[in-house]
């Protein structure tokens, strides 16, 4: 499905601040897998996610999706097949636009935005049905600007927007990190449900060990730009909280 071959990314080449964020990573994500990525700050998780999304380009290596090279495509072209949810709940939606407008853009993620009115009754009904599955009562507020909603609500809607049209890979960049514990759990449950219902290939970056153990079919740990641990579903289910915490204890 998604195939990363010998990806290396160095920032600030030749300067005193030179840092190798990702070092020769080779990684395959199988179709329908839900991979969880953990690692200390600066271990290269976010860089890896940005490399897949196309915000930054790799120095060497290749990224293939469905056996098609995508590493030279800019982010807005890649977003046709790669959807993402940001850590900052405010980034994933446009605050001054209504919920309906935001969903309209999401529905057109794979296509051009022509100069025609696309907001008809059928579309509104589709969005209303989708939004009502969240159980947040937002289906009656479709004409409200996004900016009037809470971070948790916006993050939940961002998640829902990713499946308004077909998506090959879903990238979740610490989607619950900026939320209160309850909203965080809600958003993670919604993400899990959406991924399972739509059989998505997903990659979740998280600092929350509880989340890392509860969700996903595979667990990967990164350190200094490399993959140092890789557990499949079987091995992951046998891991305990303390085991994962011990991965982060360097001083013992």
């Amino acid at each position, binding site marked *: 499905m998604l195939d990363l071959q010998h990806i290396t990314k160095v920032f600030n080449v030749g300067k005193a601040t030179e840092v190798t964020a990702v070092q020769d990573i080779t990684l395959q994500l199988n179709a329908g897998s839900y991979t969880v990525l953990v690692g200390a700050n600066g271990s290269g998780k976010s860089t890896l996610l940005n490399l897949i*999304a196309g915000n930054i380009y790799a120095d060497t290596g290749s990224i293939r999706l469905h056996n098609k090279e995508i590493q030279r495509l*800019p*982010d*807005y*072209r890649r*977003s*046709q097949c790669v*959807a*993402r949810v*940001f850590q900052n709940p*405010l*980034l*994933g*939606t*446009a*605050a*001054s*636009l*209504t919920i309906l*407008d*935001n969903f*309209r*853009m*999401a529905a*057109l*993620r*794979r*296509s051009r*935005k*022509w*100069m*025609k*009115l*696309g*907001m008809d009754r059928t579309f509104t009904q589709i969005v209303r049905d989708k939004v009502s599955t969240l159980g947040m009562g937002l289906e009656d507020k479709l*004409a409200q*600007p996004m900016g009037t909603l809470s971070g948790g609500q916006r993050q939940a809607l961002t998640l829902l927007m990713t499946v308004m049209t077909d998506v090959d890979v879903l990238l979740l960049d610490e989607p619950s990190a900026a939320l209160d514990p309850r909203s965080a759990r809600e958003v993670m449950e919604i993400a899990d449900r959406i991924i399972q219902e739509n059989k998505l290939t997903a990659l979740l970056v998280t600092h929350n060990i509880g989340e890392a153990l509860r969700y996903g079919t595979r667990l990967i740990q990164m350190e200094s730009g490399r993959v140092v641990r890789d557990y499949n579903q079987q091995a992951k289910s046998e891991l305990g909280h303390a085991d994962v915490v011990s991965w982060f204890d360097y001083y013992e």
Partner: protein
Amino acid sequence: MDFYVAAIIQAMCFGPLVIGLFLSMKIFNIPDITTDGSYTLGAVITAVGLAQGSSAIVTLFLALAGGALAGSCTALIHTRLRIHALLAGILVMTALYSVNLVLLGRSNMPLLGYMDIFSGFGVFESPDHNTLSVLLIMLAILFLVMSYLLRSDFGIAMRATGDSEPMIRAQGVNTSRMKVYGLAISNALVACSGSLMAQFQGFTDINMGIGIVISGLGAVIIGDTAINFLKVRAISVMLVCVLFGVVIFQLILAAALGVGVDANLLKLTTSLLVLFIVALPRMGGILQLSRR
């Protein structure tokens, strides 16, 4: 009374300009100073076109195209070379001064005696009423086109570009290209205003664009205040608020001149008026502070 009719006609000539500035400043969040140059460019193209014997409609479209070209230049400098939009605008505006001077061939050109866009319409006896009718029709068309555009899928993508770039890039939109389209449309409208104003006042002057961005901004801010005050959410109503803003702004200026402000102090008055409008929402805070 005629004095105020003239102010309203002038405000309506500024109609396309304020819609354009609303697009660049409020929707795209880009402070676009190209305006001063593209406004004059529209007037210059109109003067040259009419003098060459082109029809008023053709010259209007040429002016629109000229403005769009100027706006694209600013947007390309801003997005391709990653130069601050303010600087990109100033660069293009400065360059346009020479372009305008070369096109016009001199610094001032009267346009009396040509078949301009207002002279074809002769329903009423008073020429002012005919001019008002032509402008009303044009503004109605502009309003319908712009409110359709901004409600379309393309328009939503435009509004999202100014709102949250990461969001709309994640939805497959090339934001750099969107900014080029946006500033092109915005400056085409500004040039349209320049063209209308030149035909209304009967001459084109190389300096007529100086400070025009401030007049437009004043109107946009009045419109924006109305939008916030009335909690407007529909984009078409926002356009109405902005058009309403320009009429108010020009009437206040006319009133200032009417009570005897020296015409030489017009730009100073304009600036102070805009400063006053910008500062007004902050005055409340200062008053509360002094009470503490």
